[in-house]
């Protein structure tokens, strides 16, 4: 057995107010040198709090440890002084945060941000510092380090920024590296590179890694051992293989079976030949023009063509920035397409004015990505759902009754109608947003990353809801996602986008099961855990 680097015993963290609830209720975990331990669990289960407690970075005045011990190589972190903690950070323990976009100081050159760590903890000369920084940046695989060292964060891509974070965390060779969802914000290809990098570095330095994620795919690829948390409690711990094959606890089983499979579901029969949406040669350019200033132009969608029939789901997949949302917003006419046609039941709406759009609005509805911002927080749920029908002349009482029905349809009590959005969880809100869209009885529902913000168990519920509704109402769905697993489970057809162009389109089984375009293949390659079928607790059968 290797040396124990981190030992957390019976840690309890509570909200820092009289009688504040405990958000972490007695968890214990250990990590050994060179080991990667994953901490999983659904959102809000206390993963981040645990890691912050270890770093001594719990937000002052709102959370405080109330029991237990955290030992880093035997030294008790909860009882040591603030100065001592500062000394330990970066030298013995480091942390990488989730959002590479915001975790770096935007007004400081990235090189300086790494140098700072050296200056704070070592007595190296300036030139030695500089050399060391360059060396570290090379180690994390950054290209053209001499340029990047004096760049500002906004001049780097997300993956590059995350590499800077890693360089910063590892420059002093800490014993412990905590990575709190370090790749969630990155697209799959970049994610794959970063995971590989961490693994590499860990091997080289023998670092103990505590890796926090809710992506079981990632877990299956990197973990040695896994801890599962639920609502502040530690549910289960086991080596990765054991956990995936023989989960002991009910909660773990539930979590694993909620992970959608990459294997496309069986094709559904075509129920209707009615074409709801036809997009032809759609082009959207952003920017350009401008008074005296030349705004740079982005070609966000280029020559996009597809048709969608009633009762069918078309998925659009592709990595971040590939133009998926742009297409959706053009279809919804929230933005004006630069060229091309958009036909709704045969009528071209691409150039209609705001007023001209009005009759078509009710046929088109959208569910937005962010469940927290797509509902007006100041308006009751019922009012939100009624808004559309009332706009089109439905009497209020009738609209209200319909709203309650719809709430029940999406699995919420009718009594929820009088409440406000903040009183619901993310999954519930997304269901409300769906109910709102359905209230208009649309022919076409556009869902732009409608489930990406939800954790797997909630995600599964919402996806089921989509399927159910579609079956019942025969709505056509344009489903936008970057998650191939989700696409595989819900779409009849899939279009793959890259840099504004559709590179491959066809039925799901063909596109995902037998990709022809190399980009599609690369995407599938990068999907973490693609060899494991979580729901079946077994590797993907060699099909």
């Amino acid at each position, binding site marked *: 057995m290797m040396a124990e680097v981190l030992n957390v015993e019976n840690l309890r963290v509570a909200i820092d*107010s009289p009688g504040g609830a405990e958000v972490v209720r007695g968890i214990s975990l250990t990590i050994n040198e060179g080991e990667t331990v994953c901490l999983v669990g659904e*959102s*809000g289960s206390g993963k*981040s709090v645990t890691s912050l407690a270890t770093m001594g970075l719990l*937000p002052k*005045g*709102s959370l405080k440890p109330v029991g237990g011990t955290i030992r880093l190589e035997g030294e008790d972190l909860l009882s040591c002084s603030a100065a001592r903690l500062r000394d330990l950070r970066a030298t013995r323990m480091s942390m990488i945060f*989730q*959002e590479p976009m915001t975790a770096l100081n935007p007004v400081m050159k990235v090189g300086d941000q790494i140098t700072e760590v050296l200056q704070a903890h070592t007595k190296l000369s300036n030139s030695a510092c500089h050399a060391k920084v360059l060396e570290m940046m090379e180690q994390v695989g950054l290209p053209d380090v001499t340029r990047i060292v004096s760049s500002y964060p906004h001049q780097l891509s997300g993956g590059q920024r995350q590499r800077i974070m890693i360089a910063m965390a590892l420059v002093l060779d800490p014993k412990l590296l905590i990575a709190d969802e370090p790749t*969630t*914000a990155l697209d799959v290809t970049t994610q794959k590179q970063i995971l590989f990098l961490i693994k590499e570095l860990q091997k080289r330095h023998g670092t103990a890694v505590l890796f926090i994620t809710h992506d079981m795919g990632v877990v299956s690829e990197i973990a040695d051992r896994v801890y599962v948390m639920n609502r502040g409690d530690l549910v289960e711990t086991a080596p990765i293989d054991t956990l995936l094959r023989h989960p002991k606890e009910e909660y773990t089983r539930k979590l694993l079976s909620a992970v959608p499979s990459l294997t496309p579901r069986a094709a559904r029969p075509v129920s209707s030949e009615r074409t709801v949406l036809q997009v032809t040669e759609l082009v959207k350019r952003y920017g350009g023009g401008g008074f005296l200033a030349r705004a740079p132009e982005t070609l966000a969608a280029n020559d996009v063509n597809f048709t969608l029939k009633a009762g069918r789901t078309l998925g659009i997949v592709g990595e971040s920035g590939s133009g998926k949302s742009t297409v959706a917003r053009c279809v*919804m006419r*929230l933005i004006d397409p630069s060229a091309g046609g958009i036909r709704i039941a045969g009528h071209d709406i691409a150039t209609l004015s*705001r007023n001209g759009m*009005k009759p078509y*609005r*009710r046929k*088109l*509805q*959208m569910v*937005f*990505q*962010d469940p*927290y*911002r*797509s*509902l*007006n*927080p*100041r*308006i009751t749920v019922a009012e939100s759902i009624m*808004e*559309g029908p009332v*706009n*089109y002349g439905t009497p209020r009482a009738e609209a209200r009754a319909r709203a309650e029905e719809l709430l029940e349809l999406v699995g919420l009590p009718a009594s929820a109608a009088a409440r*406000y959005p*903040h*009183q*619901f*969880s*993310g999954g519930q809100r997304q269901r409300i*947003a769906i109910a*709102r869209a359905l209230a*208009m009885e649309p022919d076409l529902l556009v869902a732009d990353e409608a489930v990406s*913000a939800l*954790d797997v168990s909630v995600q599964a519920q919402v996806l089921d809801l989509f399927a159910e509704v579609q079956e019942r109402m025969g709505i056509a769905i344009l489903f936008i996602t970057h998650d191939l697993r989700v696409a595989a489970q819900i779409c009849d057809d899939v279009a793959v986008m890259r840099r504004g162009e559709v590179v491959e389109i066809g039925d799901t089984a063909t596109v995902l099961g037998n990709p022809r375009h190399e980009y599609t293949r690369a995407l599938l390659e990068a999907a973490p855990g693609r060899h494991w079928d979580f729901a079946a607790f077994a590797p993907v059968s060699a099909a």
Partner: protein
Amino acid sequence: MADSTPLRAALRLPTAKLAGLGLGFAPLIAAIVLLLIVLAAVFAPYIVPHDPIAQNPVLRLKPPSADFPLGTDAYGRDLLSRVVYGARISLTIGIGVTVMAVVLGLFIGLVSGFFRTADAIVMRIMDGLMAMPSVLLAIAIVSLFGASIWTVMAAITIPEIPRVVRLVRSIVLSAREEPYVEAALSLGTSMPRILWRHLMPNTFAPLTVQATYVCASAILTEAILSFLGAGVSTETPTWGNIMAEARIYFQLKPSLILWPGLALSLCILSINLLGDAARDILDPRMGKREG
């Protein structure tokens, strides 16, 4: 992204907000002081010992006595009565200016935030108004229409409007990018209704804070106008003109300036403290601050 979301939701509850704020006693004391001042203003006729404008030259500049608890001013008028009555006018000016500036600013700001075409013109005019030194503008306006409390109010309001407009507009500009506004758009909600129902409520919290500044600065500006000789008539006691009239006695009879000054400062201090508290309570980002 999903980090601490249940918490953020919890913080939307006003009760939870109040409980967790720990603002100290300051806002409470401020509220009490302000309430007392308002009550004094409302019931002024019943609580003052003398007519605030009745002069008695023989009794000018007398020190405090049983009959004149704070002494008398240069016309032999009772200082206490004047200060209490002054609360009436000063508060009227503060509140009147605030209401006018907020209502007009809100309207103009909403419209120019949402309609690009109106925006360019309206904002140029607002920039122009904002660039002009407000006190000088006020003096000019007061000279133009005569120095009644209405013109003084108008004169103070006009330079405040652009500030409110800018605030409202900036909120509208960012709020109109919110998905729920897009959602309303795709539900076929009309423009005016989107403005009214979805955008305007966003402005309430920051406007409340801004309003307290406007209110405080209106009361102060009135004092400055009086100081410069462009204030309302001495027959209408305001804290500003009481102080302005008393300023030459600053060294000989400081109490003449002390009492109205104290009332004014307490009032503005309270308004400001309440404004700060309002910001802390209403600011939706407070949730983030905790997490």
